[in-house]
């Protein structure tokens, strides 16, 4: 028997495809590609990392949110509950599949730029950044979806969170917020942490304690959400949404 986790991940990925989430993310990557393509080299240096950050943070939450929503609308979780699959395997397979999916869409953007614009990016660091950030935001998005009543409610909450965390992050990245005070305060912003670990792959990034702090934030934060919320709250969520 093949590992059940592998079967579940494969199932999740094929559903991302069947339910058109894959095509949407390819489309989004293409649109970003086209926009970035027409920027001049200077602007590209700061916009490309920013786009990757948005993709790894906001889009991760959106994709997992829609996946959970589709699943909810078909009540398929109740069927999963009566198979020998464990809750851990179910949650883990979603996290892995969605991280693979998002890493794939980020790679598309990066590949376009390496080929056409000759951007300089450290491949190992960019993938470390994208995978750790995507994992964190996928798990956070999963937890968020446990508490969402409907699709619109979910979108509204994502927007509020993204603006709340995203705007300060963007302002800081583009140098609008300069004071030291912001530097420390923003360390607790998960989107800032994501931005930190992803921009580290681009030329001109200065490695300080902030990089290591942010990387640890993403990894430890992901573990805390996973073991603290995603796993223990899953059964209750699954039972509730299966119409019981």
């Amino acid at each position, binding site marked *: *028997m*093949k590992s*059940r986790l592998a*079967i*579940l991940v494969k*199932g999740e990925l*094929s*559903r991302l495809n*069947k*339910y058109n989430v894959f095509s949407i993310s390819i489309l989004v990557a293409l649109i970003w590609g086209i926009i970035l393509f027409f920027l001049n080299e200077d602007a590209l240096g700061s916009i490309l990392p920013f786009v990757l950050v948005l993709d790894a943070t906001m889009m991760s939450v959106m994709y997992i949110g829609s996946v959970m929503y589709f699943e909810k609308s*078909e*009540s*398929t979780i*109740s*069927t999963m*509950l*009566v*198979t*020998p*699959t*464990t809750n851990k395997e179910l949650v883990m397979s979603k996290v892995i599949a969605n991280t693979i999916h998002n890493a794939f869409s980020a790679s598309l953007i990066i590949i376009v730029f390496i080929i056409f614009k000759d951007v300089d990016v450290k491949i190992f660091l960019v993938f470390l950044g994208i995978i750790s950030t995507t994992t964190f935001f996928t798990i956070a998005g999963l937890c968020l979806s446990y508490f969402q009543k409907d699709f619109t409610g979910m979108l509204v909450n994502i927007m509020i969170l993204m603006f709340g965390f995203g705007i300060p992050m963007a302002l800081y990245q583009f140098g609008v917020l300069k004071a030291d005070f912001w530097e420390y305060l923003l360390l607790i912003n998960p989107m800032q942490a994501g931005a930190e670990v992803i921009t580290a792959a681009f030329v001109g990034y200065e490695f300080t304690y902030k990089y290591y702090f942010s990387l640890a934030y993403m990894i430890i934060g992901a573990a805390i959400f996973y073991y603290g919320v995603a796993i223990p709250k899953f*059964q209750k969520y699954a*039972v509730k949404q*299966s*119409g*019981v």
Partner: protein
Amino acid sequence: MFKVEDLKYRYPKGEHDVINGISFDISEGEIFGFLGPSGAGKSTTQKILIKILGDYRGTISYSGKDITEFKDDFYEDIGVSFEMPIHFSKMTAMENIDFFLKLYKNNADVEELMKRVGLWEDRDMMVGEFSKGMKIRLNIVRAMLNNPKMLFMDEPTNGLDPMNAMILKDMIREFRADGGTVFITSHIMSDIDQLCDRVAFIVEGKIIEMDSPRNLKIKYGKRSMTLEYKENDHTEIVEFPLDGIGKNKEFLNLLQTKEVETLHSGETTLEDIFIQVTGVKLKNEE
């Protein structure tokens, strides 16, 4: 095989218990039915037995072991069909089945099952394009694809045409003949009457009566003879107890003196008995 003792259950947000202390056991190789009106607690009981709802009071054991001691391999042993058929609508019937099949150690012959319920020809169709009856039939295949030892079926014939309902009932009987055990809920009398070795009448979360359909009929049913005859220009109907009918003077007198229109013996149906015992009708809406 299954033993339930003094089971009580209240939904997390519920104001009162919806299962009020029920006890029963299901023996190996038996088809055990839960018969009751809408809202009686049939689906709730099934969900507790299959370990979807926890936090119940009372004890439930399977094969002599408390069900809380079982891990997820419990599900290798059982097959479940829910009230509503559930599948991934944007995948074909076969893609759905293949996906679920791989999650089990034990695999049934899918082709045979699909042919049996008449879906083999449509196996490459999207489930979203299936009719309601087709979805229900696919649900039955899904419940049986791990060759379970025990089947749990919540209103399995609901939404099936008579032909397919008959096929399903045959499949359930064959399942038992091969040593399987079945828990089935229904508010459709004929299902229970035709299939079950034993039936429990459930109303408002309480079991009011429990026995084989045959024993219930003997215990509560009255056997009678109904005679319709012409009286002047209208029809009179009279009923006589079947016992001692040959010596019943009034009956014999009517036979000899009147023009008999119809004469038939009748036994009380399970439905009549249900109403008589529980004071509740099975179907309130239909």
